[in-house]
Each structure stands twice: as C-alpha cells, then as structure tokens.
C-alpha cells in the first residue's frame, strides 16, 4: 500500500501542507503558552506558580471548578443514563422526538442556554409563581449562584453523556440480555446485574466526558457565575485578562496550565477506560427494546416529556417572550408585543456587524477545515501514514482542551507583529480566525474520518496500480464517495464557529465582535430583550442547520453526525 510513497511528490506536498497547518495553528500557540509559562523570561516557574496558587481567589476558583464540574458531571451522567436506558431498552414511544428534545441544550450554545434560563427564572418570568411558592424570589435571579451554574452545566452536558451511553448500550449483544431473562432475571434484575456492570466503563467515560466539558465551559459560569460571585477558572482568567489586559498573561498562563492538567486528567480517564474496554465487542444481535414498560409506560412517558419540555422548550419560550416585549419586566400582552428588539438586532451596528463577522468566520473556517481535512484524513486513514497519524492526535488537543486555554495561547502567540510582514493579528478578526482553525479542525475531520474508514481499501489499491497520483486519487476516487460527509463536516464547523463564545471572548475587539460576544455583552449591560432577540435569531439558524443535516442523514455514513445513533 505504501509502495508509491516515495515516488509520489504530491504525498510529500500534502504532508508538508498539513504539518504547516498543525504547526502554525495548533502546536505553535499551545507550545508557546506552555514554554512561556513553564520557562518564564523573568523569575522561575515554581515561585510564580506558588505565588499564583497562594492567592485566595485562585484557590476558590480551583475549588469551584472542581466542585461545579464534578457535581454537574454526576447529574449529567444520571440524566444521560436514564434516557440512554429508556431509549435503547424500553418500548417508550416517540423516541426520535424525545432524543431531539434531549439534544436541544447541547445544540444551542451555552450562552443562549444561560440567557434563556435566566429569562425563565427571572423575577418577571413565567415561573414567578413557582418561585414565590418555594420562597426563592429574592432580589436577584436565583440562577446567579453555585446551584444555578451546576444546574445548567448538568443539563447542557447530559446530551453528550446520553450519546456516549447510547452507543455503549449498543455494544451489549441482545442475546446476553435474553440469556439473563431466560435464567429468571426480571428487567430490573437484568439492568442491575448484567447491563450496569457491562456499562461501567461507559459510565466512567461519560462522567469524565461531562467533567472535561464542564471545566471548559465558559458561557454558563460567565453569565450565571460572575454575577453570582461564583468564579471558576475559565471566568477568573476572563475577568483578569479583560480588566488588566496582556500584562497579566504570565499569571493567567499559570491558571491555564492548571486547567490543562484538569482536562488531561479527564481525557486520560476516558482514554484508559476506552482502551481497556475493547474486549467486549461480541456478536449476538443488536439490542431492540427488550423491556416492555407495560402499565408503567404512560407514567414514564409523561415524566420524560415533562422533564424534557421543561429543560429544553420552556427556556426557549421564555426567551421568545422576552424578545417580544419592549423592555424587561413588562407584561407579555398583545398591546405590548413588539418587533423592535428584532429590528434592533438587525439594524444595530454592533449586532449586525457580529452577524456578518460570525457568518464570515463560520464560512471561511468551514471551507479551510474542509479543504485540509480531506487530504489529511486520506494520509492518516487510507495510507496509514505515521506522521499524519501523529498530527491528527495533535490536532485533537485544541478541540479537547478548554477553549479559554486556546484563547490565551492565541494571544501569547500572535500578540507580537508577525515576522516579515510586521502586522499583528491581535485586535483583528484574523486572530479569532486563526484560533478557530485550530479549534475546529478535529471537529470537522471526524465525519470525514468516519466515512473514509468505510471506503473499500481495494479501490485505492486498484487506483494505485493504474498509476494515478495521489491528488488524482483523492479527486476522482475518494472525494466522490465521501463528499456528503465532507459537506456535513463543514456545516458542523460552521455551526460551531457561528455559535462560538469561549475562544472569542478574549480575542474579540471593537469592530470584530462575534455573535456569542454580543449576546453576552448585551445581557451583561442589562439589555436582556436585545440579547434575547439575537439569541432567537441564532437559535433559528442553528435549528435550521440541524434539521437540514438530519434530513440528509440517510446519505451519511454512521457516526457522521454527532447526534446520530
């Protein structure tokens, strides 16, 4: 398979281009962050580290990060596991809609989830009577608190745990469950003695997944935690950098190293568990709703629907309500209804600019990622090139690590004018673009890799024997087969970049705002109605994209869309 490797100069060209991409956008910024922090030009790392960690605020933020992430990961696991079992094991009806409802908080960005919940629970929101009843109605929104942060993180990450666990259940052969039933085990007994023990690795991995996502989350702790004086590491970094500027890069670098260590811990747990779990894949039929809910079915359905409508739909309704009234606190009535907020969202300089910026960033990032992902995946999956394999592991880092880390790394790397051209990316839209190239490469490559794995290897070998060079092979043999996945990957990247807040929160500048930043800033300034209107517009775009992708999902190989079964 490798025989023409040295004879084909275009292979070298691909490797060179991909290496350059990874080196410039992934390795260089993160490497520079690490080197500058661990080997500071002035002073030594140990004393600086002790100094930073000695601060009360920092200790608190570390504690809060662990507190919020561990507890929310646990709740995400419970929600995710309950729904994974209900959907895969029982005869609950309308599964497609239930899954879609569960996925909504994952599909819409964290800052919008936060804004919509704040509107739901606000003193003038639809739940005011409930709040009064429980005596929760203080001067400020009860979500501005530790509990608020944990609640929303739990809901936000339940869906990703659900997806991982659902995939886990499907690795258990149906016969294994049937054998337990024949041996006299009831559905509950089978769940506890057979299914849960077999799911243990997936449950641990799911917990670690939600944990890593939570420490990386910015939108929720920023909108809920900052006003609630519940700072986590990502929001502490944000606060320091946005109030003191690049002068605090050194100490903030230390904070991001702590964040990286936490993320690596979580990723390591996932890696080890997944690796030790390879042996269980055995044949014996795919699980097909082995447990009948019988007379409990209606009750279970009512409970599931109530929960999902409450966490997924009600906040969006509150958001719509807010977007349609002239000012916060005004009643939602016919004479109050106004489209002013939407007109504001479209006409206002900042937000219209942000729409243009985010759309632009989304499109160019998607295009460049798509352009590189195909030859990159080709080298790694089909030609099994060692360098490409290594690079694809490296490319995972900027996506797996907390976004705020990438954000700082980008500042450190690109604050100085670039050599030769004497032009600094800092304070331009290009620094966001460059960071997105790092952030979304792995994300956009996943579908491409998934579909390339399914290509018949003999096709490529046949093409080699007729002597086509690798560009021609990609163009005429590989690309036609994987085009739907490449497009799906690009659309996913667009969706991610369009909704992005964490990375751009530190990189934006006047004229170069993203939608996420504008929603956050507007809400922070007290313009909840404006923030709501912009949120609604971006949610519409997002859900439109999701529906289009889902509509075409039959054309896509398994594993292309993150939410596919």
């Amino acid at each position, binding site marked *: 398979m490798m025989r023409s490797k040295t004879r084909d100069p275009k292979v070298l060209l691909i490797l060179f281009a991909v290496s350059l991409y990874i080196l410039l956008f992934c390795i260089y910024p993160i490497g520079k962050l690490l080197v500058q922090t661990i080997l500071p030009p002035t002073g030594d790392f140990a004393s600086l580290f002790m100094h930073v960690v000695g601060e009360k605020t920092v200790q608190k933020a570390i504690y809060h990060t662990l507190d919020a992430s561990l507890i929310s990961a646990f709740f995400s696991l419970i929600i995710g596991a309950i729904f994974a079992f209900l959907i895969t094991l029982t005869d609950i009806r309308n599964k497609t809609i239930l899954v879609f409802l569960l996925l909504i908080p994952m599909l819409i960005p964290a800052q919008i989830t936060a804004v919509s919940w704040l509107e739901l629970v606000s003193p003038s929101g639809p739940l005011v009577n409930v709040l009064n009843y429980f005596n929760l109605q203080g001067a400020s929104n009860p979500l501005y608190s530790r509990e608020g942060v944990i609640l929303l993180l739990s809901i936000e990450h339940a869906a990703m745990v659900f997806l991982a666990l659902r995939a886990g259940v499907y690795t258990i*052969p149906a*016969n*294994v469950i*049937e*054998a*337990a*039933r*024949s*041996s*006299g*085990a*009831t559905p509950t*007994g089978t769940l506890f*003695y*057979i299914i849960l*023990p*077999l799911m243990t690795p997936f449950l641990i991995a799911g917990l670690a997944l939600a944990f890593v996502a939570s420490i990386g989350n910015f939108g929720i702790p920023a909108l809920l935690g900052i006003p609630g004086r519940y700072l986590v590491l990502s929001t502490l970094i944000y606060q320091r950098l946005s109030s003191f500027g690049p002068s605090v890069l050194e100490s903030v670098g230390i904070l991001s190293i702590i964040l990286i260590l936490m993320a690596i811990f979580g990723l390591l747990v996932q890696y080890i568990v997944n690796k030790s779990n390879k*042996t*269980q894949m*055995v*044949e*014996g*039929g795919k699980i097909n709703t*082995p447990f009948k809910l019988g007379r409990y079915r209606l009750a279970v359905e009512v409970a599931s629907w109530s929960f999902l409508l409450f966490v997924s739909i009600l906040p969006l309704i509150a958001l719509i309500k807010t977007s349609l009234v002239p000012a916060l606190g005004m009643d939602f009535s016919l004479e109050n209804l106004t489209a002013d907020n939407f007109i504001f969202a479209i006409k206002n300089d900042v937000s219209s600019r942000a729409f243009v910026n985010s759309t632009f960033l989304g499109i160019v990032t998607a295009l460049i990622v798509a352009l590189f992902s195909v030859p990159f995946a080709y080298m790694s999956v089909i030609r099994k090139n060692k360098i490409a394999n290594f690079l694809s592991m490296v490319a995972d880092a900027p996506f797996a690590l907390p976004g705020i880390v990438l954000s700082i790394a980008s500042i450190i790397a690109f604050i100085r004018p670039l050599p030769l051209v004497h032009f600094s990316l800092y304070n331009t839209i290009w620094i966001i673009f460059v960071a997105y190239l790092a952030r979304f490469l792995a994300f956009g490559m996943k579908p491409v890799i998934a579909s390339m794995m399914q290509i018949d290897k003999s096709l490529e070998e046949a093409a080699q024997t007729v002597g086509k060079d690798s560009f021609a092979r990609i163009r005429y043999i590989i690309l036609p087969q994987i085009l739907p996945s490449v497009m799906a990957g690009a659309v996913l990247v667009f969706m991610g970049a369009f909704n992005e807040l964490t990375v751009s929160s530190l990189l934006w500048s006047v004229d170069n705002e993203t939608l996420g930043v504008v929603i956050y800033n507007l809400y922070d300034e007290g313009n909840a109605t404006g923030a709501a209107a912009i949120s609604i517009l971006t949610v519409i775009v997002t859900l439109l994209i999701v529906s289009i992708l889902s509509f075409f999902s039959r054309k896509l190989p398994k594993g292309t869309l993150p939410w596919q079964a």
Partner: protein
Amino acid sequence: MASIKINSVSKIFDNVAALKDINLEFIDGEFISLLGPSGCGKTTLLRILAGFEEVSDGEVFIGKELVSSKSFHVLPEKRNIGMVFQAYALWPHMSVWENVAFGLKIQKNDKKLIKKKVEEALEVVGLMEYQKRKPSELSGGQKQRVALARCMAMEPSLILFDEPLANLDLNLRESMLEEFKNFHKRLKCTMIYVTHDQGEAMALSDRIAVMGNGTVMQLGTPQEIYHKPVSEEVAKFVGRGMVVDGVVTKNITDQQAEVMILGENFIFRQHKTYLNTGDSVKVSIKSEDLRISSKGIATKVISGIYQGNSWSILLESINDQTTMLKVNSFDAPPKETEVVYIEIKDGWII
C-alpha cells in the same frame, strides 16, 4: 419437563409475515429440530417459545399452561426455559462459576444448594477446573459448554438452541453433537434445536420440522423427511435431492408404482393408492439412488467434482436437455462426450 403445543401461531413484523399459521405438537422429552434455510422464521418461532416475542395470532402451550396468545403473554423469566445461543451469550463480567450460578442466585436459593448444582453442572460439561476463568479466556467449544451448564443448573422444562454450533469449526462440531446427545439423554427434558444444517438435525433429532417461508412444510422423523418428503420443496432441501417429472405406467401395490422417467421405467415407493396409469407425478430421488449402468437413461457428463471419498457427477439427459441428474460414484467420471446410462434404484413419489 413439558410437552409443547403450538396452535395456529402467526407472527407479523411491520406488515411482513415471518410465521404463518404454525401448528406443531411435541411430546414431553422429545428432541426436535427446526430445520430450514436462513430467513424462514426458525429463530422467530424459538423466540416466541422463549417469550421474547409476542404472537400476532394463535396460542402456545408449554405443558398444560397457556404461555402466549394474542392477549396474554408470560414473560421469559417466568417460563422456566433454558436457552443456548449461537454467540454463546455468556456474561463477560462474570466467571464461569458465576455464569452458571446466576439464575440460582436470582431465585435466592440456599448457598449450599447453589454450590451443589453448579458443581454438578460443571462436572457434566467437564469444566470444573475452569470455574474461575472469565468467558474471554475460553475457547468457543468451552464457552458453549458453559452455556449448557448454565441451562442445566436451572433444571428447565424446555431448552431452546439457536444454531449453537454455527460458530464452531467442523471437528469441534462433531464432538459437540455427541455432547448434545448425552446432554439430552441425561436431562430428559424437551429440547428444540434450530439449525440450517441437515447433518446436525439428522444426528440429534427424534423429529424434525422442516420450515420454509414462515410455514412448517413437514414434521417427521429424520428417516421420514429424507425418504418420504411430502413436497417438492422438502425433497429438494433435504439431502439436496432431485425432483424429476414422470408418468405412472403401472400401479403395482399401494406402496409401489412403476413410473416412466425420460423414456425408461423404474419402480418407486409411494403412498398414493389412488394413482392411475397415465398420471403425471413428481419423483424425489437422492443421488445415492442413481447408478451408472449399461442400460437406463442415456445421459452425457457435464462435470465431475471430486469430494474426497467419491465423485459427484453432474449429468444431462440426452433426450431432454432440461433434466439434470447428479450421481455419486467412486470411479472418476467418464469423458465428457461419452454417453452414460443411469439406473434409478429408489425414489419416492411425492
């Protein structure tokens, strides 16, 4: 121990009928095979007996007890049935011992009793010294023996097998067949064995139900379904037999008739006493019933395939080129242009 009665059972999956009006009765302690090509509904029928699928119509009785009907369904865990699967379906997180003991523990049996029964079962399948191993540390044959021990420990009234040997290689299959036979002798409970392999079905069964297309085509002893197929489909499926057209020339007794095939007369077995001279009939013939001879049907050789101990020779009738015959011969096939005469020693008028 239990007799089985399957009464007009149908099963429809999303508008597709997997089973159509199945009627079967098995005696207590019988070893029954469900034999048929892949997709004919064997597994579905087995899963209905086990309680994993509900019936769309009809009734199933185990012993005297109704277990399935359109409006009534006994759950699998309440049926006291053992099941052995093609892919073993051992619980990978439990040791051999725990696999065998699981059902007894679920029943909250006394510890001593569990120990006694598990040891007994492991002794029978010869896996005592493997009791601490995990299923992943066993070979395919050993895994299937653990599955047998797991059934045995529960003392079920009915054991269901779904192609339990399909994952094993040829040599192992032979020895497992022996093991299944001994197992049946020892347990004396009713066993239903799904397979698409006639050899297995013939070797093990008291009776075989030949299935096709969601129906039972014939229920009979191995000898009956081999020598007295009731239909062209059964005749062709069992023993890969041939079915040729003929015309009755003489009704000899109620057991025998003379039939002309391709211009030659032969005597075949029958049970249709109402046959008349001149009737068109179909005759089931197995290749071992054909002999190359100096007289008989004139044919020429199409091909010969060496099978280790004999040749399987494909012949084409010279008078009627649409009729093919297959002969087993210990001698190498004659040259392809040569005319070969075929005598038919035995056959069954369908």
